[in-house]
């Protein structure tokens, strides 16, 4: 690998875009640099399931159009990785499942089509927990992805492939999907930025559904501005998705740039949720939160001390800039995981019924068998244990006689959680929590303990249940293990722009404090 191409992989997407626009580099060079990087490190990381064999051709087309004087979109020529849950008409789209192995959809997901339209260059498809069920990418049918910070550790999930690709400098940008934290939790444990937009903000058309009322596609990047730029490309109304919001959206890139202005967080009211990493550490009336290193106690049960420490330090930085910390309570959040693990399996059990061997995907022949036998054998062979577990859970939760007690109650909890958010946003502009309760755990550590695995989504799930946007960005390395910790901000529905402004402001403060981006501290891989 040449030094020059190595440098290109270190650039943020907006920096690459700037150099492409200025004619300093070509898209072919940028794309080749990333393909070289993938060739060098992905054997270890295993972020990718499929590589785009025509990436360089696509890059060359973009270069030709630029050379011809064509006005191109801001990210034109920049490579991007795509989570394998998104349909691509030129690459297999497996959602990490054996049952879809080799399946090439006849169409592009809307977000993929929009990226192509904007001239981004797909590098390939990234690994994930099967059908996005998991928090570690260990449930991929095609083997786990490893955390670039420590290859014995998980990269988060379900979108561990996208986050690892970005953190390992294999791609400057990636697309993920977030049903209960699958963008934000991997971002947190790999030191990346991940944004789950407002439900309905980004089209779900062509995103292989896990839980339709919770799923949302979003960007995974190394900087807040990059996430905003990618969100600008993929977001906005899509008539093919009935749940897509028809309103126009502001420029998220502009919102991120606003975050760099002096004094932008002055007067910003940041709500700290006592049930999610806030509480007991002071700071409720302003002033001292920033100084409470190691402030883990009381309601912060389940949170790793170093994660909480970095979280409160981050709040302290913002407070110093004039932000106001407000302690808020969201009592229903306590039931979020329970509700989530009823609603998600219920919807998933129905969404995954179509995988029956009749029209596409795996078919397991049963000599002399009936269609029911073939369907059953195919699903038995094609689905992994976690998928089967959730299908069984969901089928049970929807069954006559149990519906009210399970699915019905879960929907009521969902309403209560939405009310908690409404009340909280009456008192603050954004909510802040740690992105995930812990840093990356070891591969295999929680594989046999589904409940422990589920608890990893504690902080991310409420945003999905309420449909509000959430962004995760690095808050530093936890002192006890030297692994990335993250901070999450949430805003009212449709206020995604506010998150980009606040996150960009904090990111700038961190870069000053750390003397550069956190990922610069990651160990070399190759």
């Amino acid at each position, binding site marked *: 690998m040449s030094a020059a191409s190595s440098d290109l992989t270190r650039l943020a997407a907006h920096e690459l875009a700037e150099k492409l626009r200025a004619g300093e580099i070509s898209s072919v060079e940028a794309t080749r640099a990333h393909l070289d990087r993938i060739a060098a490190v992905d054997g270890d990381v295993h972020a990718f399931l499929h590589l785009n064999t025509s990436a360089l051709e696509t890059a060359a087309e973009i270069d030709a159009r630029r050379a011809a004087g064509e006005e191109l979109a801001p990210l034109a020529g920049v490579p991007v990785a795509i989570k394998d849950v*998104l*349909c691509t008409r030129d690459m297999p*789209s497996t*959602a990490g499942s054996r049952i*879809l192995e080799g*399946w090439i*959809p*006849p*169409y592009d*997901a809307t977000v993929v089509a929009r990226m192509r339209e904007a001239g981004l260059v797909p590098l390939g498809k990234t690994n994930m927990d099967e059908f996005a069920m998991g928090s570690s990418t260990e449930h991929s049918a095609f083997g786990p992805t490893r955390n670039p910070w420590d290859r014995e550790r998980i990269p988060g999930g379900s979108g561990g492939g996208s986050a690892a690709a970005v953190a390992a400098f294999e791609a400057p940008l990636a697309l993920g999907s977030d049903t209960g934290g699958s963008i934000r939790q991997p971002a947190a444990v790999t030191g990346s930025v991940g944004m789950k937009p407002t439900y309905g903000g980004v089209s*779900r*058309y*062509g*995103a*292989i*559904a896990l*839980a*339709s*009322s919770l799923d949302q596609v979003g960007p995974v990047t190394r900087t807040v501005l990059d996430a905003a730029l990618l969100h600008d490309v993929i977001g906005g109304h899509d*008539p*093919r*998705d*009935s*749940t897509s919001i028809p309103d126009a959206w502001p420029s998220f890139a502009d919102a991120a740039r606003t975050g760099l202005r002096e004094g932008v967080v002055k007067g910003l009211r940041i709500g700290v949720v006592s049930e999610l990493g806030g509480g007991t550490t002071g700071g409720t009336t302003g002033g001292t939160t920033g100084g409470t290193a190691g402030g883990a106690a009381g309601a912060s049960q389940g949170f790793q001390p170093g994660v909480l420490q970095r979280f409160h330090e981050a709040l302290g930085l913002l407070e110093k800039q004039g932000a106001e910390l407000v302690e808020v309570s969201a009592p229903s959040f306590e039931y979020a995981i329970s509700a989530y693990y009823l609603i998600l399996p*219920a*919807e998933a*059990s*129905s969404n995954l*019924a*179509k*995988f*029956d061997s*009749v*029209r*596409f995907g795996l078919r397991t022949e049963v000599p002399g068998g*009936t*269609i*029911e036998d073939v*369907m059953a054998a195919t699903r038995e062979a094609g689905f992994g244990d976690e998928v089967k577990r959730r299908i069984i859970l969901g*089928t049970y939760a*929807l*069954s*006559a006689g149990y*519906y009210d007690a399970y*699915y019905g109650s879960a929907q009521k909890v969902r309403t209560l959680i939405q009310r908690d958010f409404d009340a909280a946003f009456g008192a603050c502009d954004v909510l802040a929590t740690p992105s995930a309760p812990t840093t990356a755990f070891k591969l295999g550590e929680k594989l046999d303990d589904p409940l422990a695995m589920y608890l990893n989504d504690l902080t991310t799930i409420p945003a999905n249940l309420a449909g509000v946007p959430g962004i995760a960005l690095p808050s530093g390395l936890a002192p006890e293990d030297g692994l990335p910790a993250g901070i999450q901000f949430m805003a009212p529905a449709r206020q995604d722009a506010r998150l980009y402004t606040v996150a960009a402001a904090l990111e700038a403060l961190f870069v000053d404090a750390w003397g550069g981006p956190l990922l610069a501290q990651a160990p070399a891989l190759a």
Partner: protein
Amino acid sequence: MAKPDLMDFDKALEMYEPVLGFEVHVELSTQTKMFSDAPNPAAPNADRDAAPNTQITPVDLGLPGSLPVVNEKAVEYAISLGLALGCEIASRSTFSRKNYFYPDLAKNYQISQYDEPIAFEGSLVIELEDGTEVTVPIERAHMEEDAGKLTHIGGATGRIHGAEASLVDYNRAGVPLVEIVTKPIFGAEGRAPEVGKAYVATIRDIVRALGISEARMERGNLRCDANVSLRPRAQAGQPVAPLGTRTETKNVNSLRSVERAVRYEIQRQAAILSAGGTITQETRHWHEDKGTTSPGRPKSDADDYRYFPEPDLLPIEPSAGLIEQLRAALPEAPAVRRKRLREAWGFTEAEFRDVQNSGLLAEVEETVAAGAAPAQARKWWTGEIARIANARDAEPAELIAPEQVAAVVELVESGVVNDKLARQVIEGVIDGEGTPAEVVERRGLKVVSDDGALIAAIDAALAEQPDVLEKIREGKVQAAGAIIGAVMKAMGGQADAARVRELILERAQA
């Protein structure tokens, strides 16, 4: 399988009270499907010869990642139908998923409506053959998508079990449906079969008048599931018995079959109950050829479709303005229309019912609109055309267009053909020989209007029967009939009998 015992119908009615219920599926004739932009095979201009699996999109195949989008036109059609059934229209209705595995169901769930249908609580007045009006209570009308079609290869029964292979055609998958569900219909008694037929016929007339379905039962545009249960007659001083166990006879797809299937189930169930047996709650298949039903799959309350709200779709919230606009655009209610036409045409009750019971109201109406006198339109449709249709086992409306019937009437009125020749003209038109005028030309059916030729024929006939003129002069005018007959015979039927008669009378007075 031995043919099950049937109880005599009248005896069954003596012992038991039949309770009916109907589920009618109407395929809407929108240009595109319920949730995708694929062409709708139930549209008026659909390509009915389309190869299997060509009228589909990723949505209809349920491909991973695809999402449904509601067809707004289908919603408007459903609202119109709900209004025509006297239903309330929900200001908010939702779609739900009905989950079950079957290979014709691409997603292995059907998007339907469950607890919040678009239309509910209606009633429909239907008219039986003798003019009796019956009010059928409507429970609900809801929107859903149709499934694909399975063809089973090999195996004796043509059903999935025992077949060697099954082919699936998803062209029909996603066709917009409205399912109309009645409440239990009490009090039909011995007229239960007739009530079933008249109810389905009325639905057919309504959806046709609304222009929301092709409503061709033979093509499956309109499909009826007939529910029948019996309960014992209450004995004096005893409380009314609870409802009996029902059977649901599926896909009874002609008016006549609805009538026959209801009658059959009443007789079959009565035989079982009177022998001390119990009725199995099940779906049953209707066999058109044998006129019997046979057990399908058991249907019990244990059927669990795991309904839950469809998360891919938003609630349907039609504005009050839209509902009122659709209400204002509703065509006349059938009962009102019948009254208006009867008065406009000046028919007697019996004449009018004759037309209506033949299912020819629309045809006569259109023939009158094309210029024919009402009496003439009625005569030809319920007479010659119905006769030919019956002989050929076809529907009269499929044989000839109202405009052509009006043209035939005009040919008779203007004396170009007589009634007898007109029958041949109609036959020619039905056989595809062209327009009525062309048939007259090709078959050489014009009446002889040359008086010279007629007089020559009259003279020849009079030479055979010389006493006729004398009889006429004595006032026995009917004696002319013998000469008219002879002349018509000599002219091969192509003479205007009235003119012949005139000429004979002139001759007698000469």
